[in-house]
Structure formats: structure tokens, C-alpha cells
């Protein structure tokens, strides 16, 4: 083939490539939400900030519930103590899963652990219920909205795990508060998913309703 015969072929090929490339470029030029680093520069909260906040909250909740459990045992509320221990384990799992995502995003999981304020078992339950209710109704829904807007699936996953567990914790604390006298005495069995921290009194399912972990992975805590 002579050089001048190749010209139409080359022109056709380059035109095809130009069409493909321009399509690819135009796809990348769609309007996009601000990136996390741009939000940071603008003084806005990012999902990484939210993860650090949640990590700190979960770590403190873990420490607080461990102390609340000791107090409940002292007060003779063995079943409440078991509930606090189960919730403490769940919060520990949430801190771990949040921490993993923080590391993945280039941050460092660090908690500012404060000395828990321990009062009577009733007051401790009220404080715990207040904390879980805030996390369920305000904190995690807000964090989830932001993580979804930033399309951060790891953050959405870990916030979903925490939200589902905190919802159950709030129910259990409410139940204990409403029937505190019947929560006296010996220990009570609770089951905590080691993957997502979901907490139940009875494992009446084959797979974890939140993360699909097999039911035999659930940890019994009392």
C-alpha cells in the first residue's frame, strides 16, 4: 500500500479514536459534588471527621458501659450489668470498624477517653438511653447522609452497622428502665455479632439481620 492510499484509513481511524476519546472525556466532566479535601478547605465537616467523631464516641461508650456494668453488679442488677457488658462489646466492635475505615481514608483512629461519670444504675441506664437515642435519631443519620453524598461505601457500611445496633441498644435500655425491678438478680444472656455489633437476646435467625454473618459467630455475653 502506498502512503497516499493510507491517508483515508488513518483519517477514519483517528476520527473514530476522537469520537471515543471525546465521549470518555465528556463522561468525566459531569457535575460532581465537592471532594472531601475541598470541603475540608472550605471548613465543612467531612466523612473522615465524622468517622473520627464516631470512633471517639464509641470508644468512650465502651469505657462508660464497662464501668456502668460494674456498678449494676454492685447494685444487684445482674441482668442490667449483662446488658451493659453486651453493649460495651458492641461499641468496641463499632470503634474497630470505624477505625479500619479511618485508616483506609488515611487518618489515624484516636480517642480522647474521658473518665466515665458513674451514678446509680437507674441514672446510668437513663444516660445510656439518652446517648443511644441521640446516636440513633441524630448522629448516625446525619453521618450517613454525608457519607452517601460523598459516595463512601465503607463509611456507609460501618455507620449502618452502628445505627442498627444502637437502635437495638436503645430498645433494650428502655425495656430495662421500664422494668428495672425485674432486671435484678443473676446474669442474663445477650448475643453480639462480632462483625457489626448487632445485639439481641435471642438468636432466632440463620444469618445476622444486619451483616449476614452466620449465627454461630455470635458471641454470648452475660
Amino acid at each position, binding site marked *: 500500500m502506498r502512503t497516499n492510499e493510507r491517508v483515508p484509513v488513518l483519517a477514519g481511524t483517528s476520527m473514530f479514536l476522537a*469520537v*471515543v476519546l471525546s465521549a470518555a472525556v465528556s*463522561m468525566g466532566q459531569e457535575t460532581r459534588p465537592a471532594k472531601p479535601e475541598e470541603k475540608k478547605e472550605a471548613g465543612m465537616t467531612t466523612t473522615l471527621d465524622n468517622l473520627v467523631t464516631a470512633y471517639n464516641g464509641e470508644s468512650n461508650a465502651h469505657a462508660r458501659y464497662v464501668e456502668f456494668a460494674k456498678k449494676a453488679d454492685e447494685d444487684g442488677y445482674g441482668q442490667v450489668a449483662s446488658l451493659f457488658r453486651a453493649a460495651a462489646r458492641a461499641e468496641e466492635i463499632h470503634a474497630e470498624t470505624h477505625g479500619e475505615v479511618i485508616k483506609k481514608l488515611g487518618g489515624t483512629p484516636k480517642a480522647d477517653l474521658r473518665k466515665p461519670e458513674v451514678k446509680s444504675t437507674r441514672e446510668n441506664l437513663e444516660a445510656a438511653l439518652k446517648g443511644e437515642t441521640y446516636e440513633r435519631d441524630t448522629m448516625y443519620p446525619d453521618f*450517613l447522609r454525608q457519607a452517601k453524598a460523598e459516595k463512601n461505601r465503607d463509611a456507609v457500611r460501618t455507620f*449502618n452497622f452502628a445505627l442498627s445496633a444502637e437502635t437495638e441498644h436503645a430498645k433494650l435500655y428502655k425495656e430495662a428502665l421500664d422494668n428495672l425491678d425485674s432486671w435484678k438478680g443473676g446474669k442474663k444472656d445477650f448475643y453480639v455479632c462480632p462483625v457489626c455489633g448487632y445485639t439481641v437476646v435471642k438468636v432466632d*435467625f440463620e444469618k445476622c439481620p444486619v451483616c449476614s454473618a452466620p449465627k454461630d459467630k455470635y458471641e454470648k455475653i452475660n
Partner: protein
Amino acid sequence: MLGSALLPPPLPPWDGIHPLIVHFPIALLLVSPLFVLLGFLPKVGRGFALAGLVLMVLGTIGAYVAVESGEAGAELVTRTPEVAPVLQQHRELADTVRVLFTVLTAVWAVLLFGPALLKNKKLPAAAPTVAKIAFLVAYLLCAIVLANVGHLGGRLVHQYGVQAWFDGK
């Protein structure tokens, strides 16, 4: 634009692939009883019956992929009080469905190839036909369960706005 139409679409990650997969097993498993029925035709029936088996095998494999990808995708779904029970029912029923269709596929394979393997044993002449009719009835009942799984999935998407994630990090 033709240029972009010639580019393959981006493949979503595993936890976002459920909507792309899930319609295949539903369609395959709902169409295969038609082939089972056509399998009763004299002379040409055997080919249809075999085609039915192929559809069942593909549909059942698809059901396993759909359930597993659905489980991964479910982790990204926020459990509101309205969504949680429907999602849980959808998941449990989907698990049941894949077991049911695994059994049905195995039974249909036995009904197709079993008589040839048992040719030295004497069976009543009507036995294969009766067994196939019983199979079809059982299959149709399981198809109703499958339709309900699909309906629950449809409710999650269209009633509650649950969506899979095709993009993001």
C-alpha cells in the same frame, strides 16, 4: 452518541451488582416450567425437557449469585423501621428460594435421566408421567415463592427507594 455507545458500561463493584444479576434467575426459573410442559409433547418433547433443565441450572446458579451479591449490597442499606422488616423477609425468602430450586433442578435431572439408568428395573408405565406432573405442580408452587421474593425486592426499590450503589469508593 455512537462513540460512547460502543464503550462497555462500567462494571459495578460486587456490593452494587445485585440489580444487574437478579432479573436473570427470575426470568430463567419462571420460563423453564413452560419447557417442562412442552416436554410432554410426543417425539419432540425430550428436547424441550432438556432445554428446561438447562434453564433451571442457569437460573439456580443465577439465584446463588443474586443472593450473595444481595447480601453484600444489603450492608449499604440503612435499616429504617419501614425498610428493615421488608428487607429481612426478602433475604430470608431468597435464601429459601435458592434451596428450593436447587432441589427442583436435581429432581428434574433425576426424572429426565433416571429412567434410562433404571432400564433393567420394571416401573409402571404411567410412573414417569405422574412424577413429571407432580414435579410441575411442585415447581409452580415454588415459582409463587420466587415471585414473592421478586415482589419484595420490587417494594424495596420502588416503594422505599432502596438503591444499589453503582459508583463510589
